[in-house]
């Protein structure tokens, strides 16, 4: 049997995923039935049963989605701990690249996280109203998320069953490090332009959110998510590791760096999600989203301050830039 499947972390993770997927499968069948027969205007016992069942199903989905959100950092922690078992891997970067399923799995997980968040907001709106105005919409959204979740579950199984403990993988220095002068940044950017873009986009998000330009702040938020990823890996990360050649998004999740990666990536993802959520709520559902915007700005400001603090503290301590 694959040695990876005997790892405690992997067993707990796969068992949790399997149980949650089973629950979602039940919820999926119930949702299809709900969509077929739902008619809020009907005054029949079937409709009352459906309303009760819908409450139960939505509670199941709510519970599962909340747990899935907690499982993402646990998944990251698990693959990071597997770096001890796989030759060549120094952190999660090597483990995630151990086979071709790793990167798609991570992308699907983040997409599911964002969509689940939107579903949870929609569910809250629906439960606050008395006539279940969004039952059909959130059911369709759930079915779409369920498709992604099925893909995620299949990728989970394929990923963990195809990790070889005999084949060496590349360490993060090879994956993200210098490639003989090759520019690893997208769109032909260099580090000064990347940083300028990073801070300009952050200010743009702040101001456009304050001025209530929903679409502009959403667009800036999406661009900021991409730019921030590259800025952390290729610039701020080097100050976290205090090494100009160490470029990796995963090593900062380890205890040597006080698990700062969880705070950094967590605040970036949460900030971006709340920005997206506030835009969706305001633009499509005409709901006041002041609280969501404040939370988004809080997370993104924390993220930018944390990144900048590493650079500032390094300069104060050493008197030079890396």
């Amino acid at each position, binding site marked *: 049997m694959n040695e990876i499947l005997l790892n405690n972390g992997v067993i707990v993770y796969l068992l949790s995923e399997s149980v949650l997927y089973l629950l979602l499968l039940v919820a999926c069948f119930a949702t299809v039935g709900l969509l077929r027969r739902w008619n809020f205007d009907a005054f029949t016992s079937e409709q009352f049963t459906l309303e009760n069942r819908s409450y139960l199903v939505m509670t199941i989905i709510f519970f599962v989605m909340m747990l899935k959100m907690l499982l993402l950092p646990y998944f990251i922690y698990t693959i990071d701990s597997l770096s001890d078992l796989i030759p060549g891997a120094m952190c999660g970067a090597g483990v995630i690249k151990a086979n071709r399923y790793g990167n798609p799995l991570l992308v699907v997980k983040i997409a599911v996280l964002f969509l689940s968040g939107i579903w949870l907001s929609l569910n809250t709106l629906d439960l606050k109203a008395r006539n279940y105005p969004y039952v059909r919409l959130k059911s369709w959204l759930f079915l779409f998320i369920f498709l992604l979740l099925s893909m995620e579950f299949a990728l989970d199984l394929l990923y963990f069953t195809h990790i070889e403990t005999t084949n060496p993988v590349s360490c993060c220095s090879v994956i993200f490090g210098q490639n003989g*002068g*090759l520019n690893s940044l997208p769109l*032909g950017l260099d580090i000064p332009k990347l940083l300028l873009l990073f801070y300009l986009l952050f200010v743009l998000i702040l*101001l*456009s959110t304050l001025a209530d330009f929903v679409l502009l702040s959403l667009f800036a938020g999406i*661009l900021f998510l991409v730019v921030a990823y590259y800025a952390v890996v290729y610039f701020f990360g080097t100050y976290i590791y205090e090494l100009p050649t160490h470029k990796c998004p995963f090593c900062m999740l380890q205890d040597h760096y006080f698990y700062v990666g969880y705070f950094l990536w967590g605040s970036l993802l949460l900030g971006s999600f709340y920005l997206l959520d506030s835009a969706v709520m305001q633009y499509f559902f005409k709901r006041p989203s002041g609280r969501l915007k404040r939370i988004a700005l809080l997370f993104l400001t924390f993220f930018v301050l944390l990144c900048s603090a590493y650079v500032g503290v390094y300069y104060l301590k050493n008197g030079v830039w890396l």
Partner: protein
Amino acid sequence: MKKIVLNVTIFAIVIGVILILLVSFGSDEGSKYVYKNNREHKIIEIKPGEYQCSECNMDIGDLDNIAELIAENGNTYFFDDIGCVVLWLKTHTPKIAKLMTRTLDTHQWITVEKAWYSRTARTPMGYGFAPYAVKQKGFVSYEEMKMLMLQGKNLHDPFVKKQLLSQEVR
């Protein structure tokens, strides 16, 4: 008044972001592998560090071992080591118009098939194959070099290295 200032600032930042992106798009970054539109299939003389090897991504700093592959469509690919050419051709099948290398003895460009290859030279990627115009003892042809490279029988293999270097000492 406050609102006007806010709107003008937002407008200025949006313009700034667009300008940075446009300037970046227009830069040369990322296009240092291939020289395009070499329709006349001429050898392109490059400066050290100007281009990167299409196989190993290293900057081509040492022009002695350089090889150039000119495709029929005019795309010219650069390699820092003849071993990289062999590895690159494993996964790429361009229509080759010319495949040239610069020899270490005459410093002239010749086609790779006409060159003879030393097996123990210090080359940028350390495979040991260096091109010469004149055959010497122990040199191999392009076809032999290709075969040895594909079988991994180059200086990267410690057994091959030990065998070849001990022969050289004797």
